[in-house]
């Protein structure tokens, strides 16, 4: 990795537009994901954050705009080149997406067995190392159905780093976790990012946890980037909406009340109508 590589962003998104059916999901989005940093993409549910990860991974193609990963335009790659690229990307799905008919060990070994010709003894070492780094070496013979949600995600994380990728994408990693497993995941994501020199992208709407480890945040709503900056910069935002979002305020630009007629009139009118 030369010095000028260090300064260019690992992922560059320019003018991304993507519609699904009649719904516009992204409308002219620009983003830079810097190497070695944890970048968070946050926004309300349903804004298409997972879709963004799919676009970066090449599972979906944008209607307009470009997505460049390490200098290569993702959606212009041939199938073979795309698969090569994906070996360098790790992805952690919301549910973990472990293969249910294999044990924890087999799951982590899967990418190694599929993509390398390493002997079994080496694979065993690698798998145990990866499991150790997420703290689950002792769970290696359990089946996915025997794991709690948090443990499943950690196994999936071990699997995602099995091939020592250059980046990892996390799809809503903190959703539905109890405080302890949340804390474990937060610390793991941070530690791995620094220890392995990874670039991490976290897609989430858990503001607290994500902001605590993010180096840079993009806030997306209604298909556009509303604001971006470091957590400190966003803490001092002048946008009311972003403030409401970041602080979890119940009322603000996103109103508490669903649009309805005047309260008093509504109550009184209840007698006249059936």
């Amino acid at each position, binding site marked *: 990795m030369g010095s000028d590589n260090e300064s260019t962003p690992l992922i560059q998104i320019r003018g991304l537009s993507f519609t699904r059916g009649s719904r516009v999901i992204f409308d002219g989005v620009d983003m830079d994901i810097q190497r070695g940093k944890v970048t968070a993409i946050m926004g309300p549910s349903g804004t298409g954050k997972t879709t963004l990860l799919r676009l970066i991974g090449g599972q979906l193609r944008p209607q307009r705009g470009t997505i460049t990963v390490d200098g290569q335009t993702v959606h212009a790659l041939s199938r073979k080149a795309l698969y090569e690229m*994906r070996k360098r990307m790790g992805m952690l*799905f919301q549910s973990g*997406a472990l*293969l249910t008919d294999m044990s924890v060990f087999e799951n982590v070994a899967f990418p190694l067995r599929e993509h390398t010709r390493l002997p079994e003894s080496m694979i065993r070492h690698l798998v145990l190392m990866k499991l150790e780094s997420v703290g689950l070496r002792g769970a290696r013979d359990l089946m996915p159905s025997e794991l709690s949600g948090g443990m499943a995600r950690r196994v999936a994380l071990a699997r995602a780093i099995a091939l020592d990728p250059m980046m990892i994408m996390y799809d809503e990693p903190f959703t539905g976790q109890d405080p302890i497993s949340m804390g474990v995941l937060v610390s793991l994501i941070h530690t791995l990012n620094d220890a392995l020199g990874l670039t991490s992208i976290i897609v989430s709407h858990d503001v607290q946890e994500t902001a605590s480890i993010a180096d840079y945040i993009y806030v997306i709503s209604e298909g556009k980037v509303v604001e971006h900056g470091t957590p400190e910069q966003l803490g001092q935002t002048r946008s009311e909406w972003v403030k409401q979002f970041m602080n979890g305020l119940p009322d603000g630009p996103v109103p508490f009340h669903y649009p309805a007629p005047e309260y008093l009139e509504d109550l009184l009118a209840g007698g006249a109508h059936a």
Partner: protein
Amino acid sequence: MLDRVQRLGRVGIAMLERVGRGHVFLGNTLLGTVSVMARLRLLLQQIYAVGVLSLLIIVVSGLFVGMVLGLQGYNTLVDFGAEESLGVMVALSLVRELGPVVTALLFAGRAGSALTAEIGLMKATEQLSGMEMMAVDPIRRIIAPRFWAGVISMPVLAAIFSAVGVLGGFFVGVGLLGVDDGAFWSQMQARVDLTDDILNGVIKSLVFGVVVTWIAVFEGYDAVPTSEGVSRATTRTVVHSALAVLGLDFILTALMFGDE
């Protein structure tokens, strides 16, 4: 009125889309066959899951169907004094028709629906997506071995069904009803032809194997990734497979046995 026509048109186009998707899917599956050859262990595991585990239902059904054929055949033939031809009747019914068709229907119900459910569930739990992101093509690793396992297993199961059925007919006809043992086999051997009857039966079961497995695997892959979607896909597999098998059976029978 116009609204109904519009809806009908939309449904029609959606169906056409689906058929097209299914064919592209089949093409991709066939292309992925080369990698199956390199991973025989996957194929063997699937033949076990799809073929070996269907053995019980096939053998039991074959036995009972053969026995019923023996009974009913005897009842009908005895009126013509032709009960010596029981062997012919049982053998031809099984080898030409019941073997391939009933096996295909049972296969669709047992193995086909299991395949659809398994693949649909993998889709719903994002395992297929996860595999893609790990740079493993799910069509090559999951779909193709299952497809070929089905295609290989069907003729094997159909042959076993027919053989067991003939034995069942033998037990009932000769053992219980007193048809002459020698006549049973000799008449059968005189009339059942290797190429015309048995080979055609094998060809039928191969065709059914391709169609049933294709439907099962595609429905799973194309299922809506929710629990309701998977259950509907499983039902569709059984229904569409049954219709396809019966329809193809008519066409194949007409082609093979039509101008006798």
